[in-house]
């Protein structure tokens, strides 16, 4: 853990609404994308001379295109219900991190140029000219929103700050002020197939290594197939699953589940990424390009189903937008959801009693579950409302003996973002990430002290990386975050290969004969 020159918030017994501290985070802004990261995405390389004009035209285009956006901008009544709901406000105390204040940065400019009152009497209606100062404020504070949508749950009008933040980021990218972290990554995924920039030979080598490891540990030849044609399932998973910990332990879990299911599966080196950072910057075009790679891979490999691995916003894009972005998927088997989440896949096998577990393998841990924001509030799993909450918990309970939920305000619809979502998981925003994790850390501390929880499971690559990084700032250990399918991996009883099966059957026959 690095030394820091800012104060780590204190964990309290219960959430306390902090006193406001003006401009507490005014200094925080991520690196601006240079030309080499901007132009491949179709954006201006640097701030264009007539940026005001371009920005206002873009705002007009977006508010016309997205009815939701103009409704959100028009309908706020300043009731204040959202003010204390943002983890970044709670962690940083900066009033501009109150959702309504964040929205107003965009709304006031919208009023000035797109409403009659704002055009005629701007001062009376809080309308604001788009000045360079305002643009800087946008850059600072729209990069302190992880688009987690928690505020929208408590807003009586359902105003979604995430959509406003996406729109603001797209306007900024268009005028030449995009964010380095997101735009560099989108460029890599569009050319190399994944956010890491992992080329096919490296991916193949990594997967081969995993096959060796799992066989060594279990004695069972669990495969991690890549670019194999004619399989039933194409698995699309975040590239962090290939690279980082505890992500890779989740990937091993998926492979074991596929192995036990008997369903043939493969990954694709062309579409080796579930994450879709196009959403974070509000760019339909870039989001679409990334989604189309998945379609192309599924057609090329002749798969019948698409299953997504543990990745929060990927599941939002997949569940909510994949069909309109890259559909129709009429070439897939209509008997299965298009697409399917790995938790749905595993849960289905568990409910049909097709997987065997030794839960005691996870007895060294007492678990809790972090609902990832995009899964919790922007998608669903299974056939019933709330399936995105029950399915992962059912899987944990099927594989672990010790599970406790965190306090009610911090789970399910009310879950707090990990602090690193929405394109903010970058080192240049570390202070924001640490402070934004406060509400989750408080909830975790609660179950640690009251229920003896030792580990927190998650189903999102960003959440896992963010927690590995920020847990130590709050006195926890970095490995207290685990993948849900890591728990599956630990507990699953693998069927031995054919020889051993024959042995077992022979024993069974003997037993019958003796009886």
């Amino acid at each position: 853990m690095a030394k820091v020159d800012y104060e780590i918030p204190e964990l309290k017994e219960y959430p306390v609404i902090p006193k406001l501290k003006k401009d507490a985070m005014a200094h925080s802004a991520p690196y601006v994308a240079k030309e080499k990261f901007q132009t491949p995405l179709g954006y201006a390389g640097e701030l264009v001379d007539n940026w005001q004009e371009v920005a206002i035209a873009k705002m007009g285009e977006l508010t016309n295109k997205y009815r939701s956006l103009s409704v959100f901008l028009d309908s706020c009544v300043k009731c204040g219900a959202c003010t204390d709901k943002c983890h970044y406000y709670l962690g940083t105390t900066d009033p501009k991190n109150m959702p309504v204040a964040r929205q107003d940065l965009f709304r006031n400019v919208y009023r000035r140029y797109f409403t009659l009152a704002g055009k005629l009497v701007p001062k009376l209606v809080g309308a604001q000219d788009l000045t360079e100062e305002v643009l800087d404020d946008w850059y600072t504070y729209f990069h302190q929103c992880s688009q987690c949508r928690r505020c929208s749950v408590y807003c009586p009008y359902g105003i979604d700050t995430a959509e406003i933040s996406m729109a603001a980021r797209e306007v900024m990218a268009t005028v030449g002020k995009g964010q380095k972290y997101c735009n560099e990554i989108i460029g890599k995924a569009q050319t190399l197939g994944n956010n890491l920039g992992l080329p096919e030979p490296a991916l193949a080598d990594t997967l081969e290594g995993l096959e060796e490891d799992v066989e060594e540990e279990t004695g069972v030849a669990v495969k991690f197939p890549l670019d194999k044609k004619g399989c039933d399932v194409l698995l699309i998973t975040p590239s962090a699953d290939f690279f980082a910990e505890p992500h890779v332990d989740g990937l091993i879990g998926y492979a074991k589940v596929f192995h036990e299911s008997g369903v043939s599966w493969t990954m694709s080196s062309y579409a080796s990424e579930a994450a879709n950072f196009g959403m974070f910057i509000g760019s339909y075009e870039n989001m679409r390009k990334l989604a189309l790679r998945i379609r192309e891979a599924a057609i090329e490999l002749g798969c019948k189903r698409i299953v997504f691995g543990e990745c929060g916003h990927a599941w939002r894009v997949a569940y909510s937008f994949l069909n309109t972005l890259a559909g129709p998927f009429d070439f897939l088997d209509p008997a299965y959801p298009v697409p399917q989440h790995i938790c749905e896949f595993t849960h289905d096998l568990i409910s049909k009693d097709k997987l065997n577990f030794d839960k005691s393998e996870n007895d060294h841990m007492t678990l809790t579950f972090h609902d990832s924001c995009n899964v919790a509030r922007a998608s669903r799993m299974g056939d019933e409302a709330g399936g995105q909450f029950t399915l992962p918990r059912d899987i944990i309970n099927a594989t672990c003996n010790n599970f406790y939920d965190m306090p009610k305000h911090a789970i399910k619809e009310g879950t707090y973002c990990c602090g690193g979502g929405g394109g903010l998981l970058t080192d240049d925003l570390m202070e924001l990430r640490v402070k934004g994790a406060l509400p989750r850390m408080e909830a975790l501390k609660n179950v640690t002290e009251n229920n003896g929880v030792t580990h927190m499971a998650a189903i999102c690559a960003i959440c896992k990386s963010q927690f590995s990084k920020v847990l130590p700032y709050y006195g926890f250990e970095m490995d207290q975050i685990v993948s849900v399918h890591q728990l599956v991996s630990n507990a699953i009883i693998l069927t031995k290969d054919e020889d051993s099966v024959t042995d077992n059957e022979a024993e069974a026959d003997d037993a019958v004969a003796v009886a």
Partner: protein
Amino acid sequence: MAIEVDGQSYETDEEGYLEDLNQWRPELGSAMAMADGAPLDENHWEVINFLREYYEEYQIAPAVRVLTKAIGKKLGKDKGTSKYLYELFPYGPAKQACKYAGLPKPTGCV
């Protein structure tokens, strides 16, 4: 940004990663580590050298698991753990060691 070594200036990005990978030499890695206040010893160099070898072959830094396995084989099983690597590189073995090795920063949800 730039870093100076032996009177010569080397271009880096905002986060201190070398812009032109071909310019790398061991002295640069040492200078970067000194600037971060953590001089490199032979254990660090084992990791850095492996990263460079792997990069040469695959044009990417190795996954954490690949790295721990390789270090474990080279230096003994007790050192083939991410805990050991984090002790060496507290900012994260992938990111910090890549920087000293002159390799690009791993990007994405990592």
